[in-house]
């Protein structure tokens, strides 16, 4: 049976509802790329998602419409997902004490007290 639809385009396409979708061959099954978007020059590129593409040229074309057709963008990066190396979630404990290391943050430097005091004085 041919699929009947309210959408005239579907009727024109004459799609057989019994049609079997075969196993995807490598040519139909593209690799994924990760997309990074830069909103303004000088700022960091930020990861916005991923997409399928056969190579980096099409990945960039697709990324433009998929991730940058709304909102501001000045630059895009695409990287093969297979080229991204990551830590393992089972090693998550290597970050366990990170939130406690306040002494590594500039806000806790002694000099900050003096800067804050100076600012307060200026505002008086």
């Amino acid at each position, binding site marked *: 049976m041919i699929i009947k639809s309210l959408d*005239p385009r579907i009727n024109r396409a004459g799609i057989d509802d019994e049609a079997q979708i075969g196993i995807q061959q490598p040519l139909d099954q*593209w690799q994924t790329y990760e997309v990074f978007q830069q909103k303004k020059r000088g700022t960091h590129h930020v990861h916005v998602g991923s997409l399928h593409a056969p190579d980096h040229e*099409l990945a960039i*074309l*697709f990324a*433009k*419409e*998929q991730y940058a057709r709304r909102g501001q963008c000045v630059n895009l990066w695409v990287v093969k997902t297979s080229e991204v190396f990551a830590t393992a979630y089972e090693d998550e404990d290597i970050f366990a004490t990170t939130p406690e290391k306040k002494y590594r943050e500039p806000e806790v430097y002694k000099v900050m007290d003096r800067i804050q005091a100076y600012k307060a004085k200026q505002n008086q």
Partner: protein
Amino acid sequence: MELTEKHVEGLRELLYKMADDLLIIGHRNSEWTGLGPVLEEDIAFSSMAQDKIGQSLAMYELLHQLGENEPDIVAFTRNDKQFHNCHLVELPNGEYDFSLARHFYFDHADAIRFAMLENSSFEPLAMVAKKFKGEIKYHTMHADVWMKELANGTEESKARMQSAIDSTFPMALGIFEEGDYEKELIESGIFQGEAALKEMWYQKISETLQRCGLQAPELESVQNAALGGRKGFHTEHLQPLLSEMTEVFAIDPTADW
């Protein structure tokens, strides 16, 4: 220079054919929405189709400023004889290779036409042309990358692309069908004319195809360029498209969205 009635008539003719080309190709390409070959390409092609509709609106607005009816009325209430688009844009979608060949030919012509119009003596048109420059640049990038990909894909993809390029070519030449006011448009500096556009276009598409490993058809070999669209003579495919496109508008032209 002072514009005479003939110059304004020429300008109107130019704007109508551009607007109608953009509206009809936008509609045809939007028919791929949800049916594209892969999700990412579906999104990109649909988004460009929307761009085309937006560009056509800008043209209909310029026409409105010249005294024509509101854009919606002009776009949705005319029949096929009142449309000035070329045959290329009204032909039904078939296989994706045809749509890509049409996209490649049309968008290169459009890109050069808009680049020419950036220097138009009709200031409002020059401003619109500048505004859409980046959008159209993406459209030609998209067409060129696909051309290169398929020319260098498999033996089948290359053969099919070459065949689509060959069979679509006579239709593409209909883009450059001259109007009655070419001389007036050129002398007033509104537009450099279809003949100049065609020459630049042919050079551009030949170079691009050659770089991809494909061959541009010979201009001289074409005996059956698809002419007539600019004068309101269309294929049997335009009226059904218009009927479908205006179906909702026809039910209630005053409806608010």
